[in-house]
């Protein structure tokens, strides 16, 4: 599943949306909803809140389209809106439950015999660890592992060089490794 559009398609769609064509905007929602929803649900654990925030992203896209200059790709601009909406919401909500790494809980060991149980445990601990990452690293981890999302798009979204994106991702994963 990929979310890329050609520049020509994108410009034409934006122009139709700007002209007040609701069908065009619905088409835009159709093209980007999987991307937006996937990232939002990875950033916000509560499904009802994620539903609401994903819709809020498209409301902001609708309001902002007349001011979208087209310097960046539409997907990049939408990413920025996703990160702003999610991090604003995170700022309003209560802090995440910290990962329990008390003396009673051993550090994670990769599964050897019972692989499926180990995978489940790893997934559970991983989600809790991700919740403790700084916002930028959480966004990178959430978005990087979606099909069709490249390092370049993330660099453009965050306004940082490609090398820095990789460094942040490695740092985030190292932090996850240490938290598990």
């Amino acid at each position: 599943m990929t979310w890329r559009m050609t520049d020509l398609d994108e410009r034409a769609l934006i122009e139709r949306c700007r002209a007040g064509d609701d069908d065009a905007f619905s088409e835009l929602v159709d093209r980007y909803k999987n991307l937006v929803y996937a990232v939002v649900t990875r950033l916000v654990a509560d499904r009802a809140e994620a539903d609401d925030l994903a819709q809020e992203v498209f409301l902001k896209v609708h309001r902002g389209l007349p001011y979208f200059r087209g310097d960046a790709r539409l997907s990049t601009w939408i990413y920025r809106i996703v990160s702003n909406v999610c991090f604003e919401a995170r700022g309003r909500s209560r802090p995440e439950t910290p990962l329990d790494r008390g003396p009673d809980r051993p550090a994670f060991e990769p599964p050897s015999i019972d692989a499926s149980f180990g995978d489940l445990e790893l997934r559970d601990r991983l989600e809790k660890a991700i919740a403790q990452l700084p916002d930028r690293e959480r966004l990178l981890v959430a978005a990087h592992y979606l099909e069709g999302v490249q390092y370049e798009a993330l660099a453009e979204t965050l306004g940082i060089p490609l090398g820095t994106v990789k460094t942040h991702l490695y740092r985030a994963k190292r932090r996850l490794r240490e938290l598990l």
Partner: protein
Amino acid sequence: MTCAEFDDIVEAIVAGDVVESDAARAHRAACARCAAAFAVAEAVERALAARPVAAPPARFNAMVMGRIRSERWRADQQVDRVFNIAVTAGVIGIVLGGLALLNLASVTTTIVSMASMTADALSRPPAARAESLPMWIYPLAGALLAASALIWRWAEGARQQPERVRP
């Protein structure tokens, strides 16, 4: 290679961005701590890649478009309110301006006498009231209604015109 150096590159290696050098491989083979770190890093990489991708609900488009329409409706209501206030203020201004241009004193006297005539007519029984109404009151009422309808049509037209380009 030291453990700290290995720690710095292990994520890049398991992500496939860096090819594991012979020195790194030799270190991993000899160091239990770094071998464990490598195994955990691999597990993290696999788990991140396997994180479920949630699909939006079936009615997602309809919900978004519904919220956009209700937002647009609220904005229209706001514009309507402001516009109606402006039109009312304009009409009152024109009427008052017209009154001022005419002889204000005589107009005021006419309004007062019309008000007293109306009050007098209303105080009589209905049958007598119909007889006492002057004939000019009907065309005047009709003209007022027509003028109101025209102002309303014009206001609606002016309101709908910019709607296509409004964000």
